[in-house]
């Protein structure tokens, strides 16, 4: 059974550096792997290991202070090389050097009831791979979801559909069977109607059509059943659902990860098979266009990803690396007056808008930060019933009542990403929303 969802608002940004051949190639073994607690907002990390400890794949590296069953686990078997701390002893990352072995932690997967199901997910580390709304954080230990939303689409710029890799029906059905123990509501799976993901029994399939952000969980929720105050929903991507299924079928977590290496600075964009938390160097060495200018390596897509250096690690949600020019060494004379067809814009005043070509944008803001001047720029890219500008202003004013009334519980920073791209005032919308969500959580919890 499936329903259809047609999204009209939004934009597919035309960028150079997309993947042509979806066949995955094996990435070389990474010298080290890292788990970064900052990727798991809401997870209060405490170390479960010491430097030098031997760990197997799936063994806990960090646990949550509020609920020791909740873990972040090692993606490989090896030795804990370092627990890197920052200011006020905050854990920045736990680095594991692989020993090449195939030693993996197995879990008892015959779960009888909800409590056992929850414990299995928490202990396997897969709980932390999910997100909850409100707040767009790792689900709270006692959170009971009204519904669960799975996205089998990645509509972000240059992203590759996860449906091409994590589509085994038996595996996905096993995962849905487990998740359905945890909600009295429904499990929705948003997919493209391209037949890659078959109907999964136990879940309601949603065939989503339309430009980015049609693949975002927020859009799925907003158009099916928005989050009300006091309700919690969970969101996860297809890869996480697949990992839950693999856990149910094999007893251990499968950390295999398909990463799309994309962007205009990549020689041949391709999909690489690696493991969660791999070092960026293992994926980009020899793959980038040799350049004298600076390059920005982003773990993730250009709208929501995290800047990482060549010494960084693959970050959650472990799907994509994008490399674009940094642009901080470009001298552009009177760029605001440019009529160059190479300038990327949604404005019809740039001829590039009309030519069907792809662009090679760099990371410059291309303008000064201003107060919000033009109106409606966010609404155009947000297929949700949210008054984006007013919500942003309520957040900036730290007005909790207004934030609630305007639907802050329904949104995640990524829902504002496309608007942030188009905003002529160059507002840091995602940062504002993230800070607003954190502020609200601190005040209300």
């Amino acid at each position, binding site marked *: 059974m499936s329903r259809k969802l047609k999204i009209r608002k939004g934009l597919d940004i035309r960028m150079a550096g997309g993947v042509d051949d979806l066949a995955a190639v094996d990435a070389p073994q990474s010298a080290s792997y890292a788990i970064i607690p900052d990727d798991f907002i809401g997870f209060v990390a405490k170390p479960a290991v010491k430097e030098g400890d031997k760990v197997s794949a799936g063994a806990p590296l960090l646990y949550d202070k509020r609920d020791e069953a909740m873990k972040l686990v090692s993606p490989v078997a090896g030795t804990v090389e370092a627990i890197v701390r920052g200011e006020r002893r905050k854990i920045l990352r736990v680095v594991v050097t692989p020993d090449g072995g195939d030693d993996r932690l197995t879990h008892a997967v015959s779960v009888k009831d909800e409590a056992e199901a929850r414990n299995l997910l928490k202990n396997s580390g897969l709980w932390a791979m999910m997100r909850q709304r409100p707040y767009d954080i790792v689900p709270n230990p006692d959170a009971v979801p009204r519904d669960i939303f799975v996205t089998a689409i990645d509509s972000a710029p240059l992203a590759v559909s996860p449906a091409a890799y994590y589509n085994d029906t038996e595996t996905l059905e096993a995962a849905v069977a487990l998740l359905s123990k945890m909600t009295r509501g429904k499990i929705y799976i948003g997919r493209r109607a391209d037949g890659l993901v078959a109907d999964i029994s136990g879940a309601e399939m949603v065939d989503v059509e339309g430009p980015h952000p049609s693949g975002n969980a927020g859009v799925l929720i907003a158009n099916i059943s928005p989050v009300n105050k006091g309700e919690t929903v969970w969101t996860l991507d297809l890869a996480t659902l697949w990992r839950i299924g693999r856990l149910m079928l094999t007893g251990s977590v499968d950390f295999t990860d398909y990463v799309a290496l994309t962007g205009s600075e990549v020689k041949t964009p391709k999909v690489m098979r690696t493991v969660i938390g791999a070092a960026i160097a293992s994926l980009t060495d020899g793959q980038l266009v040799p350049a004298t200018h600076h390059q920005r390596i982003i773990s993730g897509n250009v709208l929501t990803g995290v800047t990482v250096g060549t010494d960084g690690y693959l970050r959650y949600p472990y799907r994509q690396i994008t490399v674009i020019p940094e642009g901080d060494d470009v001298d552009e004379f009177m760029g*605001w007056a440019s009529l160059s067809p190479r300038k990327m814009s949604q404005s019809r005043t740039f001829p590039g808008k009309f030519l069907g070509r792809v662009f090679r944008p760099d*990371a*410059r803001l*291309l303008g000064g930060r201003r107060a919000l001047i033009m109106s409606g720029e966010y609404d155009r890219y947000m297929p949700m*019933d949210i008054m984006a500008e007013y919500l942003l202003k309520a957040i900036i004013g730290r007005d909790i009542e207004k934030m609630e009334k305007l*639907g802050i519980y329904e949104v995640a920073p990524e829902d504002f990403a496309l608007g942030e791209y188009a905003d002529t005032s160059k507002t840091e919308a995602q940062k504002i929303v993230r800070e607003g969500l954190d502020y609200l959580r601190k005040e209300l919890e």
Partner: protein
Amino acid sequence: MLDKVKPHFQEGGRLHAFHSVYDGFETFLFTPRSTSTSGAHIHDSMDSKRTMIIVVMALVPCLLFGMYNAGYQHWVAIGAAEKPFVSLMLYGFLAVLPKLVVSYVVGLGIEFAVAQWRREEIQEGFLVTGILIPLICPIDTPLWMIAVATAFSVIFVKEVFGGTGYNIFNVALVTRAFLFFAYPGQMSGDKVFVDTDAIAGLGEGTVVDTFTGATPLGQVALQAGEQSVTITSTVGSDPVTTSDMFFGLIPGSFGETSTLCILIGAAILLFAGIASWRIIVSVFAGGAVMSLIANACSTPLYPASMLSVADQLCLGGFAFAAVFMATDPVTACRTNVGKYIYGFLIGAIAIIIRVYNNGYPEGAMLAVLLMNAFAPLIDWCVVQSNVRRRERRMKIKITDNE
């Protein structure tokens, strides 16, 4: 070159006091190299500089036509049979140039000083305001008045609210309103809309005896009690037709007379996606509806009620206000539904003031300013409907569960 002098303007440099000015020039000449540090890594090439420049470009047809018309009206006034194009343009150019210079020097001067004082980047909002001010003022407005009015509105309407993007009222319109209410003697009536003096030896001649200098709306306002209205040219009995009003060879504020040039500007703004078509369309709709109503119950008591819809929309500052004033995104409604209401009311109120207040023949300026004040209220109602939708959704949920 810029990089060489840069150290002087940085903290501790000799010219640090002018660093905002330096930044202003640097970002004007070169796209800033600052890159994204949070959120989206890429940004659209559109920025507020380009936005403002496009509005200025959209105003150029009105400016050029205003020059020609200023010359034309002068040549008409002196009764010249020949109207040499180059002389007309040059006359208009010389008439408007000092006003442009005064408006920009005063406005930008204040903006630069405030930016420097707040240690902020110079913002480009005044680029548009500075050209709007001469365009909406009568040709004979004394320069010192423009200077005083510009200073007043930039300081009290914009900077005290926090600068570009925070003002409640349209800065250019407040300048015009300030002139109108502070110097009513000099700013209305028949004397100011046609320049009767020669400029730099151009257009020497004596004003003909029949010259009145009254604008069409000014003439209409004086015809109370007549059974029909007649509009004539400034020097006699030639009737002014609707097409004259559309093309704009009539006396009026400098850049407002030609509906055609305003529509060219509107086309530029709409193509660029800068002005809201919702607002422009609904201002004209509101004006047309109100004109029809006024026309249906026309009375000699209010002579302007006898004007046709087309005349109402072409005359005075109506079209200019619809395209360039009502669409100012900062002072207009920001919600889509709000824009329809806001625009419609501007159109309707402009005609109401024009028709039913003989003392003040033009209402577009006051209508826009009035709706500027009400725009946040309209938006509040629209946002409130979103809030209520959310609350209702929750209530239904709760009753379902009970």
